[in-house]
């Protein structure tokens, strides 16, 4: 294996780890592993902060709406209708 291949594989492993942590699906060991790596690697640290800020922006800015008035009632009466036909 040459240096370039190793670097590519290392990058891929970092990206995967980073994604797991940002999505809250990393084990404690993986979180620790990333934390250690971020202390040594500036590129990954920047990547981590950027990805995290985008995910947070999505969560903060895109707020859920309520379903339109009457939709729940329409659905429930249709269900009653369907149920009574049987």
């Amino acid at each position: 294996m040459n240096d370039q291949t190793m670097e590519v594989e290392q990058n891929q492993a970092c990206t995967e780890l980073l994604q797991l942590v940002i999505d809250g699906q990393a084990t404690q060991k993986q979180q620790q592993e990333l934390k250690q790596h971020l202390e040594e690697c500036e590129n990954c640290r920047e990547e981590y902060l950027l990805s995290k800020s985008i995910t947070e922006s999505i969560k903060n800015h895109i707020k859920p709406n309520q379903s339109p008035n009457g939709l729940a009632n329409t659905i429930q009466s249709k269900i009653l209708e369907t149920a009574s036909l049987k």
Partner: protein
Amino acid sequence: MSYESKDKQRVFNQEFMPHIDAMYNFAYRLTLDEDDAKDLVQETFMKAFRFINSFETGTNAKAWLFRILKNSFINNYRKKSKQPNKVDYQEVESFYNSDSVNENITTDLRVETVQHLIGDEITNALNALDVDFRTVIILCDLEGFTYEEMAKILDIPIGTVRSRLHRARNLLKEKLKLYANSLGYKDKRK
């Protein structure tokens, strides 16, 4: 599982109806149209009632309903639209990784730029993504589903969920970069 008729309505009201807002939001973000979203939610609930025997009480009702909604969306709306059914992910990926695209982007996207973007800009960038990419971001970041739940909702392996999510986020970054550039955000480090 086979329910008595009165149990069907009880399960429906207790397990399914509480998710109506989440379902409407998902439908709206897929169709980007209020009326289409309403129709899609209604259709999903009718199907959920019809197939209620295949739902096991106590299992994840929200994921079950999201899966039905996503399948209905594919059946109804993909047929109507001129979009091809499947994105060639490889092609999109290599396109976005190519130098010819990157050389036009002079400003690197930075954390503080992202923090300056307002809701509309984030929403527009997300909505500009192809629906397959948009969907994984919605399910993960907005609805908080795990990779495993997403795999079930989308009928794809977990590995595909993760790679699609990664690509979706890269595409979103590109959109946000272009947005930031067009709004005149410059790298303040220089």
